[in-house]
C-alpha cells in the first residue's frame, strides 16, 4: 500500500501547494520530483522481484539438470580390466566332448580367479584372495562362457581379454573413491588400491562404452544392472494404458461434447472428471490394490495391472484435452454435414473427429508422458519387486523406469548413484521425445478457422 500512499501524498502535496499559493500545481517542484523518483524506484524494484523469481525457478531447473547430468554421465562408461585367461580344457571340457551343454556348465568363474592369481602371484591369504577376486565382476564369467560357446576353438588357448570390473574398482577408476583418504573410510583397502595402480601402470585398465546398461535387466551388482527390463516393463504398461484410456477417453469426450443432453447424469460425469484429475496419484494406487488385486485377483507386479491403474489416472487428461479439441471444430462443419443428410454419428466420425484428431493425439501423448513418469500408484500394486528377467508380456512380473529409479536410489552401493542418474537421463530423454512429438503435432496441424 505504500505506493498508493505515496501517490496520495503526491496529490495531497499538490493540493496544499495549489490551495496555499492559489496557482496551478508546479509539477516540476523538487518535492514532487522527489516523490516521482521514489515511485519509479519502487517500480524498478518490483520489476526486479519478478525477474529474480523467474531467475530462481530457472536456476533450480539448471541445478536439477546439472546435478543429474554430472552424477550420471559416467554410468555410460564402464571400467574393464585386461587379463590373460587360459581357457583350460581340464576345466571347460575335460572329456573333449565339444558339447555346448557341458561347456555351458563349466566353471568359468574359476578360470578368471586362476588368471587373477597368476597375475598377482604373491597373494596367498584367503581374505586377500577374496578381495582380489573383486577386481573382476561376478558377471564376467557369463561373458567368458558366451565367448567360448561362440568360438569353441578357444579351448586350450591363452588369450588376453577385457573383462568387466567390479563396481568398487569401477568407482575408483572413475574417481569417486579417493585413494588419499584414510584406509578405514573407503571401500577399498590399500592393497586393493595398489593392485589397481599396478594394473593401470600395465595399461590393463580401460573405460569402454557400457552397452550392458541398455541391454540387461536389474541386478544386485551395479556393474551388471541395466534398464532394458524396466524399459520393456514401461512399454507394456503404457501399451495397456493407451489401449484402454485412448478409446474410452475419446468416446467419453465425444459423448459429452456432441451428444450428451444437459441432465443430471452429464453433470455428475463432468464433476467427476474434474475431481478425478485432482485426486492424488497414490489414491489410484490404493484403488488398484483393492479392486484389481484383492477383488479381481489379477497377477501382482504385472504391467497389465499397472496399465489398468494408470489408465484411470490418464483418463481425465485425455477427456479434457479431447473435449477442447472437439470444441475447437467450428459448428459450420457440423451444420454442412448435417445439411447434406449425414446422421449425427456420421457427422462426428466423418468430419468432427478427423479434424479434432491432432488435438486429441497431442493430449493423449501428454497424458502418456505423465503416465510414463508416474511412480507412486505402481508401488502400491507391487511393481517394486526385484526382477532380473526381461518381461515377455503384459502378464509377467515387471517393473517400470521410474520405479527402477526409485529402487536404485534406495540402494546403498555408491555405484548405483550414477546408475540412477543415468536412468533418469534415459527417462527424461523419453519424456522430451514424447513432449516434442506433441509440440510438433500441434505446430504441424494447428488450424485457425
Amino acid at each position: 500500500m505504500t505506493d498508493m500512499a505515496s501517490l496520495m501524498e503526491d496529490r495531497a502535496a499538490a493540493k496544499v501547494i495549489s490551495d496555499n499559493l492559489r496557482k496551478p500545481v508546479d509539477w516540476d517542484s523538487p518535492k514532487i520530483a522527489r516523490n516521482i523518483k521514489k515511485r519509479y524506484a519502487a517500480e524498478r524494484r518490483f520489476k526486479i522481484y519478478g525477474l529474480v523469481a523467474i531467475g530462481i525457478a530457472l536456476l533450480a531447473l539448471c541445478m536439477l539438470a546439472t546435478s543429474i547430468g554430472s552424477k550420471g554421465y559416467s554410468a555410460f562408461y564402464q571400467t574393464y580390466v585386461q587379463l590373460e585367461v587360459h581357457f583350460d580344457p581340464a576345466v571347460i571340457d575335460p572329456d573333449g566332448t565339444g558339447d555346448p551343454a557341458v561347456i555351458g556348465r563349466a566353471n568359468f568363474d574359476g578360470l578368471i580367479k586362476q588368471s587373477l592369481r597368476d597375475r598377482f602371484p604373491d597373494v596367498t591369504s584367503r581374505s586377500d584372495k577374496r578381495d582380489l577376486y573383486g577386481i573382476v565382476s561376478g558377471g564376467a564369467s557369463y561373458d567368458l562362457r558366451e565367448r567360448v560357446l561362440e568360438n569353441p576353438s578357444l579351448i586350450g588357448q591363452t588369450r588376453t581379454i577385457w573383462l568387466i570390473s567390479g563396481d568398487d574398482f569401477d568407482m575408483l577408476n572413475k574417481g569417486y573413491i579417493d585413494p588419499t583418504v584414510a584406509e578405514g573410510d573407503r571401500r577399498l583397502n590399500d592393497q586393493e588400491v595398489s593392485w589397481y595402480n599396478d594394473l593401470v601402470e600395465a595399461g590393463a585398465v580401460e573405460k569402454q562404452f557400457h552397452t550392458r546398461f541398455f541391454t540387461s535387466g536389474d541386478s544386485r551388482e551395479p556393474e551388471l544392472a541395466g534398464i532394458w527390463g524396466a524399459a520393456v516393463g514401461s512399454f507394456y504398461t503404457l501399451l495397456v494404458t493407451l489401449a484402454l484410456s485412448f478409446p474410452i477417453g475419446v468416446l467419453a469426450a465425444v459423448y459429452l461434447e456432441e451428444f450428451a443432453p444437459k441432465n443430471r447424469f452429464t453433470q455428475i460425469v463432468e464433476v467427476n472428471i474434474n475431481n478425478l484429475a485432482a485426486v492424488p496419484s497414490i489414491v489410484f494406487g490404493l484403488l488398484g490394490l483393492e479392486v484389481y488385486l484383492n477383488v479381481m485377483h489379477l497377477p501382482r507386479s504385472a504391467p497389465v495391472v499397472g496399465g489398468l491403474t494408470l489408465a484411470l489416472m490418464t483418463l481425465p487428461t485425455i477427456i479434457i484435452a479431447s473435449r477442447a479439441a472437439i470444441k475447437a471444430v467450428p459448428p459450420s462443419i457440423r451444420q454442412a454435414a448435417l445439411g447434406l443428410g449425414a446422421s449425427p454419428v456420421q457427422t462426428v466420425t466423418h468430419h468432427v473427429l478427423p479434424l479434432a484428431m491432432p488435438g486429441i493425439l497431442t493430449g493423449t501423448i501428454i497424458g502418456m508422458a505423465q503416465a510414463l513418469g508416474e511412480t507412486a500408484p505402481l508401488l502400491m500394486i507391487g511393481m517394486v519387486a526385484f526382477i532380473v528377467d526381461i518381461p515377455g508380456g503384459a502378464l509377467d512380473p515387471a517393473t517400470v523406469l521410474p520405479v527402477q529409479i526409485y529402487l536404485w536410489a534406495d540402494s546403498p552401493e555408491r555405484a548405483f548413484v550414477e546408475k540412477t542418474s543415468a536412468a533418469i537421463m534415459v527417462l527424461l530423454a523419453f519424456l522430451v521425445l514424447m513432449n516434442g512429438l506433441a509440440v510438433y503435432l500441434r505446430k504441424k496441424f494447428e488450424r485457425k478457422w
Partner: protein
Amino acid sequence: MSLSFLLLAVAALCALSFYFGRQRAVALSGGRHSNLHSLPVHYGAYTAAWCGLPALALLLIWYMFQGSVIEALIVSDLPQEILDDSGRLSLALNSISLIAAGNGQHLTVEPEIVDAGRRLANIQTIANAALVVVMLSGAVLGLSLSYRKITADMRARNNIERIARYVMIACSAIAILSTVGIVFSLLFEALHFFTKINPLEFLFGLEWSPQTAIRADQVASEGAFGAIPLFVGTLLITLIAMCVAVPIGLFSAIYMGEYASPKFRAIAKPALEILAGVPTVVYGFFAALTVAPFLRDNGAILGLDVSSESALAAGLVMGIMIIPFVSSLSDDVMSQVPKSLRDGSYGLGATKSETIRNVIFPAALPGIVGAVLLAVSRAIGETMIVVMAAGLAANMTANPLQAVTTVTVQIVTLLVGDQEFDSAKTLSAFALGLVLFLVTLGLNVFALKVVQKYREKYD
C-alpha cells in the same frame, strides 16, 4: 491360450463378421444399394458390434468374478482348523498358489495343501479353457444371430448408432465408476480398520507407531495409530513448499504477464513448464541426494543440526515442483481482470507496479486464493519426493530442520512389501488414504468454486 491371443482371436472374428455382414447386405441388395435401408458398411458394423461386444462383456464379467470364485472353491475344501486361524489361512493360500504355479517344490506343508495346490492348478486350467470357450461362443452366437437378422429393410444405421451411443455413455460412466471404486475400496478397508482401532484415537491420537509386534510380550504390541504426527508433518512440508512456490510463482506470473517482452516470454515460459513435466521421482532423487546433503553440510557450518532427512529439503524441492502450477494458474486469473480496471488505473497516473499491486492483485485475489488452494492439495498428495527425502520417524515438531513423516510416506511404507489384509497395520494405510482423498477432494471442490465464482463476477 493367453489373454492377448484371445483378444486377437475376437478381433479377427469381428473383422470376419464385418465382412460377412457387408457381403450379405450387398447380396440382398441385388446390386442396387438403393434397395437397402442403410449403407452396406452399416450392416457390417452391426454384425461386428454384435460379435465383439458380448465377448468383451463376458470377458469383463469373467475377470471380475474368476478370482474370488476360485478362492472360495479352494477354501471350502481346506480342513476346518486352517480356516479358523486367519494367519494360517493366508499362509496356506500363499503356498497353494505357489504350488499351483509350479514353484512349491521347496515348501514343507501338509498334504492337504499340496492337494489343494494341485486342485488349484487344475481349476485354473479349466477356468482358462472355459473362458476361451465362453468368449468365443459368445462371439459366434452374436455373429450368427445378427447375421440372420439382416434384411434389406433392416434399419442397420439406426441400430449401430444406438449401440454407439450406449457404448459412449458407458465410457463416460467410467469416470463415475472410478470415483465410486475409490470411495468404496477406501471406505471398505477403512471401516474394517475402525473396527479394530477407535476412529477418535486414529484422528486425534498423538503417537504413531504402526509396527505391531510379532510376539505378544514385546513393547507396544498393539501398535499406536494416532495420526496427528503425520498430519503435522504433512502440513509442515506443505507450508515450506508453499513458502517457496507462492511468492516465486506469483512474481514470475506477474513478470511474464506484465513486463516480459514476447521474446523473453517465448523462452522462459516453456522453460518454467519443464519444471512441471519432470517426474516426481526425479525430484525425489534430487532432494535426497543433492539438496539434503547440501543443507546438512551448510547447516553444520552455521552450527545448526540439520537432519539428513529434513522436512526443509523435501519442502523446498516440492515448492520448486509446484512453481509452474501456481504461476500458470495465477497467470490465467490475472489475465482475466478486465482491461477497463487497468486502463482506469493508468489514467490516474499510477505506475505499472502500483496498478498491479493496488488494482489487479486485489481484483484477482479470490482466483489466486483458489490457485493456491489447488497447489496445497497437490502438495498434500505428493508422494515420491517425501518418500525419498522425508523420513519415516513420526516426530511431532514444527522445526523444519528435523525429520518428519507424512501421510503419503506412511501409506507407501505400510503397503510396499508383504501385506496381511487383516492386520491393523496394513488397513491403517487405507484409513490414511481415505483422509487424504477427502481432504484433497474438499480442497479441490472449494478451490474450484472460488475460482468459478470469481469468473462469473467478471464475465
